[in-house]
């Protein structure tokens, strides 16, 4: 006959068995797919830029299926290629004194299927890759130069142009544009 102590132990063991397993079950790899709650937006991808009525054009045309690709999926580019775009931007952004900012200023945006741009976003980091507010005048000049770019060549799938994200990183040293990577 079981003593009350054993009954308590068995009950506790049964209750523990109901908890998610660590170790053995995971080692067999049988739980993961069914165990992860799918409460998130399944369409979301790293880097998606959501429409913001306070800064984005409501009439910016996008393909109706809603899929915005990455530029490297199908070579969205600029007339003359990235080497020429870099030279064009370096010419458009002459050295200006007045700030001691150093780091990376990345401008990311959407090139739509017509070769137009919108949904611009900026990330400013210091040389240690930490967020840093940069001189607003410098940011405005860089953003203005990117917005002014015309004639983008959107990438294509099966002969049809598509929407895609593109970004340009400005290497800032003591307030001026030292380099551009794209």
């Amino acid at each position, binding site marked *: 006959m079981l003593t009350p102590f054993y009954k308590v132990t068995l009950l506790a063991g049964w209750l523990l068995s109901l908890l998610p397993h660590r170790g053995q079950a995971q080692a067999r*790899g049988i739980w993961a797919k069914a165990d992860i709650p799918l409460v998130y937006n399944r369409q979301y991808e*790293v*880097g998606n830029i959501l429409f913001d009525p306070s800064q984005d054009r409501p009439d910016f045309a996008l393909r109706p299926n809603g899929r915005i690709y990455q530029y490297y999926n199908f070579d969205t580019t600029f007339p003359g290629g990235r*080497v*020429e775009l870099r030279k064009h931007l370096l010419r458009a952004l002459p050295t200006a004194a007045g700030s001691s900012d150093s780091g990376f200023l990345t401008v990311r945006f959407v090139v739509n299927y017509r070769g137009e741009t919108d949904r611009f976003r900026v990330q400013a980091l210091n040389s240690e890759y930490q967020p840093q507010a940069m001189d607003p005048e410098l940011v405005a000049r860089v953003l203005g130069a990117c917005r002014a770019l015309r004639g983008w060549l959107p990438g294509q799938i099966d002969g049809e142009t598509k929407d895609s994200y593109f970004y340009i990183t400005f290497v800032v040293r003591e307030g001026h544009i030292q380099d551009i990577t*794209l």
Partner: protein
Amino acid sequence: MRRTLLLGLLALLLGRMAAAQPNCLIYAAGSPERAACEVYLQAIEFPQGSIQSQVYFDRALALCPTFADAYHEKSVPFLKRGDFQTWKKLMDEAVRLRPERFLGDRGWCRFKFLHDYAGALADITRLRQLTRNQPGQSGDGSYDLRIVAALCQRELGDLRGALSTFDECIADYKIKDRVGLSDYLHRGVVKLRQRDYAGALADFELQRSINGKLAETCYYTALAMRQQGNPAYLGQLQAARELWQQGYRLNDPYVSMPDEISLPEIEALLQQ
């Protein structure tokens, strides 16, 4: 002896394959590493950057917070999509946990995507110390990381240091008959910047023996010849234009490459 060498090569190849996709069986059954590794393999079945893959990487790290591969793989879409803050944060964790495995990737990406030459050089220098000066290849396999270090030195303005690093790496690879696909081209550009035109032309000639069809080789050959007053430079420029238009040029899907040229650059020089 020959058999030992073959077995050694096989072990090396298997090691590289394991680095690309971890072999979960190397971890003890029931261990947190094995569990995290199995979830990691499920994560990479989803499209890179999808929320599903990111959630799976998080779950792998919840099971085993020291499973560095998950930090690394989770970081990749942030890099490719320009969120360098998040990329660096995740990559730093991978490097902290397995420096010998991930320092090279971090350095290569700092060089390639951000032109952070000082940061990249620091990473590769540390890796060289950890690996007895055999840091391995860049993330895409294009370069020995010592060549990347030389390019960093070049872009930081240390031309003599760059040349010395190029020479050391190329001499090492010459013995193994494994000079990289554009190593001589990049070293030639260092010599061009040093105004050593004869030295540059010799390197561009060596580049032709590695890869005979490259617009950049013809373009920089033309620059050196022009400086020497050799009118044959026009023929080199015409060859550069033809090769460029045929697609024989430095190219990368993500960013422009070191010493990459554009068609308008060739045409501008042709019209001068």
